[in-house]
């Protein structure tokens, strides 16, 4: 079994009276694709925010590549090779798509010319090269999400956290996105995906972690998860509540 790249231990966070994440522990190994699933409000995005330094955990530790990164600022976390995308894409709206991507590549390439060339590469990777000169704010939501991935990849991370990048995609687009993620792994990247599109998570992930109400209720290979009665109950429960 390969080394542990990300080690989350006993992570907890509450907002006022709401316990968003409680005593959460899991590991990500180098080179794997880990899926994180759970009903709405189960703490997936909060977990990303805690790992990447946007929130400071109440308790618990995050270790990345053998070093304690708990409480580091987001840019420090990113500089160490751990980058995330946002569920609601946050482009820099008033500048071009290319310049948006450059904001990522400038991290490792201070020379703007080199950064621009690298930015074109990542745009090609996500299929946005034709829109390089459009204003990012005028992209469709789906293209903005692509840009989000391109910008993150531009920082040349070791671990990529994707927050629901596939929501709202058509079937062909989902397949495309899955191919992209699989190809990223081929390049040596480790990926964590938070996703509602079950087909994608089940096919893509090596392992899956299931969250419910801020805690981990199951972890295992996709087939095991699909057969886990507690997971089914959590999802069905959520469905019942919604009805």
């Amino acid at each position, binding site marked *: 079994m390969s080394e542990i790249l990300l080690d989350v231990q006993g992570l907890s966070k509450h907002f006022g009276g709401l316990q968003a994440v409680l005593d959460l522990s899991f590991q990500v190994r180098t080179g794997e694709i880990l899926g994180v699933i759970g009903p709405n409000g189960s703490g997936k995005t909060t977990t990303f925010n805690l790992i990447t330094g*946007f929130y400071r955990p109440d308790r618990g530790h995050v270790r990345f590549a053998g070093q304690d990164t708990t409480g580091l600022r987001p*840019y*420090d976390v*990113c500089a160490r090779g751990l980058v995330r995308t946002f569920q609601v894409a946050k482009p*820099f709206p008033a*500048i071009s798509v290319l310049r948006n991507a450059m904001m990522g590549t400038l991290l490792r390439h*201070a020379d703007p010319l080199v950064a621009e060339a690298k930015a074109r590469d990542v745009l090609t990777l996500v299929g946005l090269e034709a829109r390089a000169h459009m204003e990012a704010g005028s992209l469709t939501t789906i293209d903005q999400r692509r840009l989000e991935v391109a*910008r993150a990849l*531009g*920082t040349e991370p070791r671990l990529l956290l994707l927050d629901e990048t596939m929501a709202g995609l058509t079937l062909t687009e989902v397949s495309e996105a899955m191919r992209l993620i699989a190809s990223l792994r081929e390049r040596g990247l480790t990926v964590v995906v938070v996703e509602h599109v079950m087909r994608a998570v089940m096919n893509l992930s090596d392992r899956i972690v299931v969250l419910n109400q801020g805690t981990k209720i199951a972890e295992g290979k996709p087939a095991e998860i699909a057969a886990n009665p507690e997971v089914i109950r959590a999802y069905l429960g959520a469905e019942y509540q919604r009805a």
Partner: protein
Amino acid sequence: MAESAATGQSDLAVRGKRVRGLERAIATAAILFVLILPWLLPNPFYVHIVIMMAIFVALGGAWNIIGGYGGQLSLGHAAFFGTGAYVSTLLVNAYNISPWITLWIGGVAALLLSLPIGVICFRLQGPYFTIATIGLAEALRLLVLHYREITNGAQGLTVPFKGNAPLLLQFDSKMPYYYIAVVLAAAVLLITRRMERSRLGHYLVAIGQNQDAAEAVGINSAKAKGQALALSAFLTGVAGVYYAQYTYVIHPDGAFGLGMSIQIALVAIVGGVGTILGPALGAIIMELFVQSTQILFAGQYPGLELMVYGGLLVTVILWRPRGVLPWFESWYRRLVGRAERVSGGTP
């Protein structure tokens, strides 16, 4: 036209070349104009006006680095201006150091002051930031007034008059002052251009548009803003030294006052923030206006000049909330377009 449309790209390239040629010609003409300008003016008073314009181009340009590109609306730049002016003048008076040297020392002093200010203020956002900068500059003004053994209190400081002494940055004609001020202004604009194209320039734009997204891709926003503030403070301090040297007299209320902070910021805002030429345009407009009202009312009606000044500000903001430069540019583009058509539309 139809012929070149078939080749597509080359049409664009030809047009690009012609526009660039035209732009180069305009730029050359502008530079020549700036160089001979003082000789065209009827008397030294008008030279004084253009010197003030150049100094305010430098000040507005310096503010623009943090206020325009960095999107951090400082209303405390008088702190840097005053620090430069006071540190330099105190050194000149106490140790007879040449202002050519204290010019740099004054800039560095302002830069050093910017470091704690950055640490304190960049934790704050929006109006909190603006008001904290006002508070710090005001506190500094009151302290300068208070420690009169050093600063001479409300009376302010004077630069000892040495006649024509180029080594001491003093001249008996306004011409040398003009050219030095132009060099200062040009230096600020060139530095701005360099900064705009550097990693820092890109980062400031990113931070201004979405700070969370910027931090997520590894941009240390506090550091970038701190660097921009330091650069801005240094240039403001240098301009402050030069201003003191040129006017011979500085007062706490003038050099550290809120009025100075507002004037510095205004130049960039009226012209257009976050652009290289905005502050230059703003300084020209504002100074022309300020000086012409001064001639018009000759100081007979206290308050009237500044009242009209405020009126101009309010009008510009109602009319062009993003400054005059964007409007000026579209007007210029139309002009270039017409020139192009006149010089023959087909290649």
